């Protein structure tokens, strides 16, 4: 049996939230998904604030909840640390008092608890605000205190609900760096929930994609980026995802458009085209066997050294070219372009 095993279902007004999770000690699971996918429901269910409708949760050999045998530990008896999305820092307490709260509740003396709390704050790079009142902390500082409060009880299960989503870009980077640093010394299982999918990819041992209460895809981070199985995952991986039926060297996708491919599996497949493998031309291109579609330029986003061109027509694609190429092609005037992709640069895998 794994260190952490959860198989839970929670009924919700619009859809049920159901998810299976499993992890070894020290692992980090990232749960990603759009807003309203039920991610916070998973947090509330695991920490015991929301009862399960079915399923069970086992952590470090102890059953926390088992609907079948009517077992349900209250939050107080679960070794859990939660950094809530709403932070929920205690007002009228300083940062250090907030962080020490859990240790005090578990019976630690005030002086000892405050000392450990100060150390945890320091580990997160927030020692200078230790004695600041909770209501006077900035967004990034408050987030660090919330993380420190969750870590300070040395829980078996650490739940991080969108730990950076409400911060500006600068504090996001700062908080993320502090968090990653603190997690290196954390022995339990971490569940990192976010709708900013790239965030936990570097450290996660598994990424679970949740949409409308269901797991739509799961795997190691690189697998998700290489083989997205839903538009949401494709979007964060930054690739074009099409679905179609393959005959080996051709895939017919929605609308009847054919995509020429190399060595595709037969039957229902996903087709992935990376935006920077799409070449754009104003004139019909010549040369090697390739896919060529005549599409409309819908709009252009400039992101640093790249221009992302959204194309519509028989296919909806995003192409990535250099800004100077966009200027040479006169894309600002919109109009029609030829989009060309080599068959060898189209990736396919079974649905």
């Amino acid at each position, binding site marked *: 049996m794994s260190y952490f095993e959860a198989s839970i279902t929670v009924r919700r007004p619009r859809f049920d939230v159901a998810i299976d999770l499993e992890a070894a000690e020290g692992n980090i699971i990232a749960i990603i998904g759009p807003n309203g996918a039920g991610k916070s429901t998973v947090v509330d269910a695991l920490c015991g*604030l929301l009862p399960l409708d079915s399923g069970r949760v086992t952590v470090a050999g102890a059953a926390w909840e088992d609907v079948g045998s009517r077992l349900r530990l209250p939050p107080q008896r679960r070794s859990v640390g939660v950094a809530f999305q709403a932070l*929920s820092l205690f007002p009228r307490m300083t940062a250090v008092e907030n962080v020490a*709260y859990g240790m005090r509740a578990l019976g630690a003396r005030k002086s000892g608890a405050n000392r450990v709390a100060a150390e945890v704050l320091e580990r997160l790079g927030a020692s200078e605000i230790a004695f600041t009142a909770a209501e006077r902390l900035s967004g990034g500082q408050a987030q660090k205190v919330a993380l420190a409060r969750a870590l300070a009880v040395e829980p078996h299960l650490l739940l991080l609900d969108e730990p950076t989503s409400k911060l500006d870009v600068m504090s996001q980077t700062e908080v993320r760096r502090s968090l990653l640093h603190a997690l290196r010394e954390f022995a339990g299982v971490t569940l990192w929930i976010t709708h900013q999918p790239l965030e936990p990819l570097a450290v996660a041992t598994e990424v679970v994609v949740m949409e409308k209460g269901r797991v739509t895809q799961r795997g190691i981070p690189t697998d998700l980026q290489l083989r997205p199985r839903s538009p949401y995952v494709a979007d964060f991986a930054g690739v074009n995802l099409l679905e179609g039926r393959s005959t080996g060297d051709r895939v017919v996708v929605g609308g009847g458009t054919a995509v020429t491919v190399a060595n595709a599996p037969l039957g229902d497949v996903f087709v992935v085209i990376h935006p920077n493998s799409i070449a754009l031309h104003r004139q019909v291109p010549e040369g090697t066997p390739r896919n060529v579609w005549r599409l409309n330029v819908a709009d252009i986003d400039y992101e640093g050294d790249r221009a992302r061109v959204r194309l519509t027509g028989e296919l909806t694609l995003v192409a990535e070219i250099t800004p100077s190429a966009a200027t040479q092609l006169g894309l600002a005037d919109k109009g029609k372009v030829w989009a060309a992709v080599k068959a060898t640069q189209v990736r396919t895998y079974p649905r």
Partner: protein
Amino acid sequence: MASGSGLRKARGEGAAPAVFLILALIAATFFLLPLAGLIAHAPWSNAIRELTSPATLDALRLSLVVSFSSLVLSFVFGLPLAWLLSRKRFPGRRLLRGLVLVPMVLPPVVGGVGLLTAFARFGLLGDTLARIGITLPFTPAGAVIAATFESSPFLIVVLEGGFSSVDQRLEGAAATLGASRVRILRTVTLPAMWPAVSAGAALCWARALGEFGATITFNGNIQGRTQTLPLDVYQTLQTNFDGAITLSLLLLAVALLILISLRGNLRVR
């Protein structure tokens, strides 16, 4: 810009309309006049003798004991009731809330009669209480019961509002950190609703101090046993108008003193 703000003022969003000012002034005068009258008619020469008479000292002592006992009882039984009304959904909750409000709308004399029918020897619980040696009517304990009946609803109503105003996610966070329910109440919930606790306590205590109708109906007017300051004022008024004014000023002074120190203390974290 200038014409814009002028327009706004003309519409009454800036300055108060004159008619409002006049009506508000009349209201303020209405509250001030009786106080001014008490002070203007105060028989300062006889004040010391009146204030140090045994009847007055008895009444003062009893009033303090009764009002603070009521406050404590109201907290002990009212806090859980307020929590229940605010946080739990159960059949009959609205009925229960209405029941709590009854003493606030019931004439206190009727409340006193009701207390008699419940706790006097002939009352619903009278026999039971007598068998275990408890007599309430015409005793200091009876005065506490009457004052609590009339004053605790003020505390309960305000506390219920306070409980509802607390962000329950804070309590959830405390629970995940291992805090027991009592600890959460003490360290998170009550501090977060402190304005309600302090306002409710002040209202409840003041109402208990001023309690008259239910007390005199349920307990009579026995010096040293059930004669609180308001009852003393009433009795003195029959024969000695000056004495009644002195006692009224004493009651006023006690009320102001305690309310100021109570709110001051309760405001402190």
